[in-house]
């Protein structure tokens, strides 16, 4: 049975697209046929993060409007042949996505794919609503920062009341916390909310912590999901998250400050 995962946050710039690209690649690398859909109509960016921006011919809205078939619009990833990208449209028509149309495309994808990752736009407008509406699982991407935590809480309220599962009185969406841009050394100094602080407020199942990392910008610069940078801390953190999501028991990493005594002493 296919599962639909929404990557959401409310707030912009917290790492939704980075996370969508990384976990979609992670799931595909683990042998599951995966599609990742950009719901940010008008501000398409997943294609850039996945490095397929020059191969976009048709998009999500073309498929909804039946101007192209799903197979014409899906772009096969260059690094993994089990991963496909459905890019967003660059149209400025904010009503381009319809609930009926999105439902139809997802139903068609479900026949062929194991996981469908929906990269939500920021905000709580139509694109964000439709990205989460059909979800089975929600990855709530949060930064250890007040506005992000507040917006995540707001999104949790919407997931619990405005989704298809909520409306049809089905089992609620499984919600998971992904804490991104985490700096253990700043947490230690009392300058940043800790994992425990954020969990005290949001009471969510923690899927993983992604440390603040140079590798994320390097990955987006080159258009390769950061999970493929297997030596990097962020890449490993995402690999752990995919493994945990698939049911493996992996101890949490990147929460403690691991710098050695001398590096602390002399900075760096």
């Amino acid at each position, binding site marked *: 049975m296919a599962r639909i995962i929404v990557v959401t946050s409310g707030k912009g710039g917290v790492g939704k697209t980075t996370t969508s690209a990384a976990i979609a690649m992670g799931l595909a690398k683990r042998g599951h046929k995966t599609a990742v859909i950009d719901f940010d109509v008008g501000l398409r960016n997943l294609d850039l993060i996945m490095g397929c921006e020059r191969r976009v011919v048709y998009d999500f809205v073309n498929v909804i409007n039946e101007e192209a078939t799903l197979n014409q619009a899906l772009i096969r990833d260059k690094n993994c042949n089990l991963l496909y990208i459905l890019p967003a449209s660059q149209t400025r028509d904010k009503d381009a996505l319809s609930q009926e149309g999105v439902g139809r495309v997802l139903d068609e994808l479900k026949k062929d794919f194991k996981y469908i990752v929906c990269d939500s736009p920021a905000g709580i407008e139509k694109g964000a609503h439709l990205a989460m509406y059909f979800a089975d699982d929600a990855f709530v991407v949060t930064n250890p920062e*007040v506005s992000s935590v507040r917006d995540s809480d707001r999104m949790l309220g919407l997931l619990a009341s405005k989704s298809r599962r909520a409306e049809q009185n089905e089992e609620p969406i499984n919600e998971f916390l992904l804490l991104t841009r985490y700096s253990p050394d700043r947490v230690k*100094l009392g300058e940043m909310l800790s994992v425990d602080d954020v969990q005290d407020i949001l009471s969510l199942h923690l899927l993983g912590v992604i440390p603040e990392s140079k590798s994320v910008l390097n990955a987006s610069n080159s258009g390769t999901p950061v999970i493929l940078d297997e030596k990097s801390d962020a890449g490993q953190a995402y690999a752990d998250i995919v493994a945990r999501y698939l049911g493996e028991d992996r101890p949490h990493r990147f929460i403690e400050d691991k710098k050695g005594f001398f590096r602390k002493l002399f900075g760096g």
Partner: protein
Amino acid sequence: MSLLDYFRISKVGTASVAKERLQILVAHERSSKNQPSYLPQLQKELLAVIQKYVNVGQDAISVSFEQDEEQETLELNIVLPDQK
């Protein structure tokens, strides 16, 4: 973090302030999320009616809505001025 940081370790970080602010805010937003949308208007109109008879201020009245599995409760609290 460098050697210098050890001399200002006593400085209280701002994370605890952030947590406290968030806990208050989130609790407030969660409780108001389930409230019916007519509540602010109801409060305004009730205040207008009461002010016709009693000289009370804007904050003399509070309307709160609570919901559990059994029932929904609308609580109305009016503070009358001291009689002199």
